[in-house]
């Protein structure tokens, strides 16, 4: 099979389930939540039809899902789970336990808006607010990227220089439920990419009288936290290498940031996830009108690729940051404030114009994105170096 490209029509959720099937983890502990449900439904099919030999634990909550994942991971097992929105929020406490105990759990997030008001549609706030939990964090634009990042995440998380959990997000319904073309990999390709052996670590198992989850006070706590930061820093290079290896294996170019028509651009869109597709489409429309504009897509959100973003935006006059996430009382959109930090004090960097948009699955149309682009240019022309607006709502 190796080397033969198979193309299958799959939704984003199905793509994740099929990719996990190739990995065949030891444990999947998960709780259903829209729009993640197809992932756990398909995977349950694989388990009950004997296509994988994973232990599937259908827990009674997301809190227990992540708790069971931690228990499983510490025995040395390969572990996967998936959630969205409220489910991720319910896991939040144990996200920190998972990273603090260095459990390389892989988590698929079907990005969905938070309540209230309750809403089931696409929005990335759920994942973005986990930015400080010491999880590697990636976003995918399409079902293909969902498929690829599923497999990639195991490689990054389990790397001995990282040993941190990893989450990747695809937007609810927009990607999770949209049928798309997906190039699949063979079982052999995935087995070659991800080591067959399980991680080497201190294990919670009958042969090792070891204590996990001690009470650590002022005298040691900070050293342990510092080790997590070093692991997170290592994750950058590990991700870069893993993406390179994945690109060679799959024939699909995979990079920490994706640059689209940026070489000669004066203006740029910055986005992540499904919005990046729209941004690229708008670049094509604007280019046709003679605008020198390009697009930057962020795939790796944590560790934040500050240097890549600085280099990509160097020489750009104004950047339009499309952020499908909500934040209140903040100096900018969530991703905008990160970019501002990355660029602060550097020469030859663009003015930053953040736009909170698309909340609760609201669509920001291509003409609206063009309008936003014009706004950014205007702000830049009058010398405003940083602005933040909400767009695409009834005033």
């Amino acid at each position, binding site marked *: 099979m190796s080397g033969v490209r198979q193309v299958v029509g799959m939704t984003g959720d199905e793509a994740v389930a099929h990719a996990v099937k190739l990995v065949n983890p*030891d*444990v999947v*502990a998960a709780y259903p939540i829209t729009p993640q449900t197809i992932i756990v439904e398909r995977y349950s099919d694989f388990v009950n039809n004997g296509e994988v*030999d*994973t*232990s599937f*634990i*259908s*827990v*009674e*909550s997301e*809190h*227990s*899902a992540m*708790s*069971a*994942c*931690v*228990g*499983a*991971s*510490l*025995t*040395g*097992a390969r*572990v996967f789970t998936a959630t969205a929105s409220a489910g991720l929020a319910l896991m939040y*406490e*144990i996200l920190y*336990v998972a990273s603090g*105990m260095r459990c390389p759990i892989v988590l698929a997030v079907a990005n969905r808006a938070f309540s209230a008001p309750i809403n089931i549609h696409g929005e990335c706030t759920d994942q973005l607010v986990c930015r400080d939990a010491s999880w590697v964090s990636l976003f995918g634009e399409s079902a293909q990227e969902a498929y690829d990042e599923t497999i990639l995440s195991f490689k990054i998380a389990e790397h001995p220089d990282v040993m941190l959990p990893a989450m990747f997000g695809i937007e609810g319904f927009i990607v999770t439920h949209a049928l798309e073309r997906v190039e699949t990999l063979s079982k052999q390709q995935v087995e070659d990419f991800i080591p067959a052996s*399980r991680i080497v670590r201190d294990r*919670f*198992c*009958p*042969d*090792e*009288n*070891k*204590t*996990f*989850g*001690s*009470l*650590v*006070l002022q005298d*040691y706590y900070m050293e342990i936290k510092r080790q997590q930061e070093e692991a997170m820093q290592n994750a950058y290079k590990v991700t870069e290498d893993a993406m390179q290896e994945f690109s060679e294996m799959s024939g699909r170019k995979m990079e920490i940031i994706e640059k689209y028509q940026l070489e000669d651009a004066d203006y740029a869109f910055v986005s992540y996830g499904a919005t990046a597709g729209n941004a690229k489409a708008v670049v094509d429309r604007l280019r046709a009108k003679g605008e020198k504009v390009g697009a930057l897509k962020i795939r790796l959100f944590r560790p934040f690729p500050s240097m890549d973003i600085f280099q990509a935006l160097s020489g750009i006059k104004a950047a339009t940051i499309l952020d499908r996430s909500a934040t209140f009382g903040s100096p900018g959109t969530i991703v905008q404030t990160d970019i501002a930090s990355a660029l602060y004090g550097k020469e030859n960097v663009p003015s930053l114009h953040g736009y909170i948009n698309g909340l609760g699955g609201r669509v920001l149309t291509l003409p609206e994105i063009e309008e936003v682009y014009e706004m950014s240019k205007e702000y830049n022309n009058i010398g405003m170096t940083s602005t933040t607006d909400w767009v695409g709502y009834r005033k």
Partner: protein
Amino acid sequence: MSIVLPKVSVKDLQEWSKLGEVFTSGHRLCAGCGAGAMARQVTLAAKALGDPYMFVNATGCLEVASTVYPYTAWDAPWLHNAFENAAATASGAIEAMKSMQRKGLMKERNVNMIVFGGDGGTYDIGLQSLSGAVERGHDFLYVCYSNGAYMNTGIQRSGGTPQGAATTTSPPGTVIPGKIEWQKPLAEIMAAHDIPTFTASPAYPRDLMAKVQAGLKHDGPAFMLVDSPCNLGQRYAPDISMEIAKLAVKTCFFPLFYTYKEEWTLTGISSRLAKNPDRKLPIEDYLKPQGRFRHLFKPEWKKKLIDIQDTVDEKWERLVKKATCV
């Protein structure tokens, strides 16, 4: 299928005490703490069975006092995750080991998994995760050591706090004399999951250890509720912890029994009290030595004491009616 309690003799205890402690000295539990005695008895009973054993511990006194980094009191595989998720954590570890055994990544054998949680971590914040894990049928023995309040955080009221007890969040006020409600019927709730359910006291080690072994031998989840005296939170002198624990049983406030499906069986002192009701002690004998009940002995709360006695009697009679004695 019914539960068979192994006979544990004094000679067995002597032999087992030579096996070497699993919960070792050096921990920082208070002098007089019942949880330490409970942990030694549970772990030794597990060790005596011969199969490998592992422990998951919810946040609480036993956890914080036994694993102050970089030290540990556990000569065993031991894991703490968080407060409300000990059973879920154990279910992950159990299924992971099963899966890796199936794939040839881990040696195949029986492993006895024991989960410890206090009353806060079990009656209250951890009940959902425990109920879920039991419904899924993971093979573990969950031991709830109830000292009747959130003792670790400074004696706050829990669902396991007895009626009338003074805690820092149910203080003996001029209008409300301590905790208003009776305890949640935790053993009955767990028994309703159709799993072997035991009650035990560290004051009766042979009874407790026999029940631990029966619970571990059972294929599937089992639950044990242990009355764990706490001199600090229940307010009495540290040298009478075991006396207090005995009085809880002798007043029928905390009966010793086990149950599985239709079968309810009283054990030890409780069995004898069922046969000789005149030897049952009044509840005041249990309440009086404890500072947490001192206010109930003021004249204005006399009715409260009578109410507590009535409830103890009613619950005991209900249990005796459905139980057999050994």
